[in-house]
């Protein structure tokens, strides 16, 4: 392609970071021929990460170098880089903090942390700066922190992520954040890693190894029944695996609750080749952290389950798309993949079965929307993370335009027990409509926030009791079920059985398993506005109903917060916005952007606040 590049050069550090990823043999020359350029595009996101994590931002020279190496038009690369919150196109210090001010953290005092940081470190990053060229000295300038949406550490709210760029980048995410802990982390002494609190009632299937087996040891994984499921899968044959998964009535845990067996079968039967498997580990729904706990606590399980998915769907290649804000999961997964490869559990002829499969780990870069499956494909492909219109569905036209089975982390891990012990064993717990167990992310005003594994059909109050109930001295006011895209339920709904069918009947959703408890000291309209702000910030901006609708929805709530109008008076507008976003948006983000807010209004929960 006859691209026009600029005359700005990368610094030595930028060049070597990109060369380390892309190799140096080819020199500066882009891939030859149109097809080769097209194939190289998928390396754009990793290359941008290489720049960001080596020098702390994406400079003009660095970006241009990536464009030359990959044959990507500079304007498109800029369009991609400017899509992601973790990439800075303006100069930044090498050590930088992302401080969560999302719902769970706000309820836990994030604003206090932010105002203290502002006093100590100055104002947060907020745009209004020009892109620039890097200097060889690499010294960073500019704001040292920014606010962030949910970091998936809600059980330890308030949370922060600190990134330290360099030849050996060091990132860490931690909870119980205070201004001084953040400052210490910026200075290079991060807090000690804490493992998440997990508990269960009934059989531990998904959490069987979490906190039990060393996540860094393949031997420990195998000692705890690891790779029995894959061996069983090879006995069953691909058709047998498909049968078991279908009969288990497993449905997806990523939010859409689609039957996994049907999805896999559609991919297995699709005639176009190759097929792909994608593990959606982009977990960014506010209030959700269950996938993180699995990824950090049982990384080999994810690798094994993806291998089984590959076997069943006739795919030889899997992509694991991990959200960019999970440094610990990144480290443990990379290690698990390498160990599995070294142990002959990935690569050619796995366990002597003749089946070949490998996994590529891809890091997201701060975009909730990339959890939407088709946006995720675009992100892997090196395009902007904009969702595609459906149909066609991923099982027909997915990653790189090929049939693709995309599944949530928890869905995949659930497959292990199904294959190893059979569908019948799996359906022995849970309800008729929702067999098996489910992970819930319990956070907010409860005694023991954490990830809980309970059989489907467990009542909401029983789950809360397991978590120790509401904090002493506080009264529960409402629970956000299913995340920002879910809905609020009232105190009178505590007997609700947690299953897909019962929540649907009650007009709410399990979503991604969020159970976020608010006590009556938390003002709710600002929480609603924060939810509205989240959707505004995370909208990809493609379609008008969502791009503008989320803005108008936030403006509306701001008026209420500021006493410029009343919720009551805004209801017609709120309803209209909800309708157009739900009916006319391209993807689930816009379609659900008003659901939590509308549910809160419907509950009449906040009338006392205006």
């Amino acid at each position: 392609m006859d691209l026009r590049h600029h005359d700005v050069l990368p610094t030595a550090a930028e060049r070597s970071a990109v060369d380390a990823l892309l190799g140096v043999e080819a020199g500066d020359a882009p891939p030859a021929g149109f097809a080769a350029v097209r194939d190289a595009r998928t390396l754009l996101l990793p290359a941008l990460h290489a720049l960001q994590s080596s020098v702390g931002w994406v400079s003009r020279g660095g970006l241009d170098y990536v464009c030359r190496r990959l044959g990507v038009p500079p304007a498109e690369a800029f369009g991609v880089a400017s899509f992601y919150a973790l990439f800075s196109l303006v100069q930044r210090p090498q050590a930088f903090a992302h401080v969560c001010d999302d719902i769970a953290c706000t309820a836990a005092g994030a604003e206090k942390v932010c105002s203290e940081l502002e006093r100590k470190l100055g104002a947060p990053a907020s745009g209004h700066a020009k892109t620039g060229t890097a200097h060889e000295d690499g010294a960073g300038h500019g704001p040292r922190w920014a606010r962030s949406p949910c970091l998936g550490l809600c059980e330890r709210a308030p949370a922060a992520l600190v990134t330290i760029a360099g030849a050996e980048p060091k990132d860490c995410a931690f909870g119980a954040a205070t201004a001084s802990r953040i400052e210490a982390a910026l200075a290079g002494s991060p807090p000690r890693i804490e493992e998440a609190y997990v508990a269960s009632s009934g059989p531990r299937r998904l959490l069987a190894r979490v906190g039990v087996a060393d996540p860094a040891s393949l031997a420990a994984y195998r000692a705890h029944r690891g790779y029995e499921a894959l061996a069983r899968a090879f006995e069953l044959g691909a058709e047998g695996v498909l049968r078991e998964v279908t009969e288990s009535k497993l449905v997806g845990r990523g939010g859409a609750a689609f039957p996994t067996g049907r999805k896999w079968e559609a991919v297995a039967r699709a005639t176009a080749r190759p097929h792909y498997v994608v593990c959606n580990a982009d977990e960014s729904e506010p209030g959700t952290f269950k996938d993180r706990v699995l990824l950090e606590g049982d990384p080999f399980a994810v690798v094994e389950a993806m291998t089984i998915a590959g076997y069943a769907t006739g795919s030889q290649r899997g992509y694991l798309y991990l959200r960019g804000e999970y440094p610990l999961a990144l480290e443990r997964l990379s290690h698990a993949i390498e160990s599995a490869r070294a142990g002959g559990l990935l690569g050619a002829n796995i366990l002597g079965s003749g089946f070949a499969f490998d996994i590529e780990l891809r890091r997201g870069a701060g975009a909730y929307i990339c959890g939407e499956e088709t946006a995720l494909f675009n992100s892997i492909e090196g395009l902007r993370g904009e969702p595609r219109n459906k149909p066609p569905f991923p099982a027909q036209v997915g990653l790189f335009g090929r049939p693709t089975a995309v599944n949530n982390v928890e869905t995949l891990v659930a497959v292990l027990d199904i294959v190893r012990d059979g569908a019948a064993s799996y359906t022995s717990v849970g309800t008729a409509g929702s067999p098996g167990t489910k992970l819930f992310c319990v956070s907010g005003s409860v005694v023991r926030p954490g990830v809980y594994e309970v059989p489907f059909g467990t009542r909401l109050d029983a789950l809360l009791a397991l978590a120790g109930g509401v904090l002493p001295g506080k009264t529960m006011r409402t629970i956000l079920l299913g995340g920002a895209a879910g809905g609020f339920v009232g105190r009178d709904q505590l007997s609700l059985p947690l299953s897909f069918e019962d929540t649907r009947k009650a007009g709410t959703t399990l979503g991604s398993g969020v159970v976020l408890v608010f006590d009556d000291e938390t003002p709710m309209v600002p929480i609603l506005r924060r939810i509205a702000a989240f959707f505004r910030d995370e909208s990809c901006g493609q379609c008008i109903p969502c791009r503008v609708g989320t803005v108008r929805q936030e403006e509306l709530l701001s008026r209420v917060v500021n006493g410029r109008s009343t919720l009551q008076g805004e209801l017609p507008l709120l309803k209209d916005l909800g309708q157009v976003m739900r009916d006319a948006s391209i993807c689930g983000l816009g379609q659900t952007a008003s659901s939590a807010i509308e549910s809160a209004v419907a509950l009449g929960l906040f009338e006392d606040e205006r």
Partner: protein
Amino acid sequence: MNESSRGEVEFTLDGRSVKAREGETIHAACRSAGIDTPTLCWAENLTPVNVCRVCVVEVEGARVLAPSCSRKVEAGMVVHTDSPRVRSSRKLVLELLGSSVDMSLSTDFADYAKRYGAEPGRFGPRAQPSAAGVRESALPGHHEVGDGTRAATVGQPTKVDNDLFVRDYDKCMLCYKCVEACGSDAQNTFAIAVAGRGFDARIATEHETPLPDSACVFCGNCVGVCPTGALMFKAEHDLREAGKWDESKQTETDTICSYCGVGCVLTLRVQDNKIVRVTSPSDSSVTGGHLCVKGRFGFKFVEESPRAP
């Protein structure tokens, strides 16, 4: 495979049973059936991006509405193009668009707004336009929280960085047409792309480089497809600024470009015996509606070179 060898499918459109070619969009089937469907981001010479959502229709059994411009007809589908849900969505889409973007030069928009009774003013008075460079430097995932009393817009100053065309992104509805025309649908130059995210998403060159320093080759194909007047030939822009743009005095004539042997069809728009805009019909098999810099802007030699006496 050529078009006619494809099969036909039968489906129900607004209560009537109609036949359509397999693979045809609902929008195309509507056109054959004489149903006028509003569209803003669709164009016959570009790949549908289905982002404006003004063309949505109701497909029975589907949870949400479908964009007719890209959704393909399936046998047995039952489609409503004028149900209350459809009318309400179209109205709201037009209101949201009109409240955030200056759509004053789009006659299609004005017609649709009238048809659906859209009132873009209902979200409150418009916010002040931003100063130059502000929208361009937004941080993805961040915005300034206001008090909600003014409706945010994409308002900003016009970019004038060359003598051939201007970019007034105050009028940009983000239909992606220019990006497609500059990119893989026609020109394959990729001088512009969508940058930023959410409400801050915008059309940009890399690092907002002025066009003359960007990859732009000044083919003007982006201008040719822009439905809102956000991209406008300088000649037209200057006449409008001076208050001299007068459509009643204009003619349009098709002729053939005088440069190379490709023979592109040019539509010359003329006011006061001066060419004020050059486009190409999007159904021309030679050009597909696209031109190069010579055909698009090379006319000035007729007007400006000293002519033979």
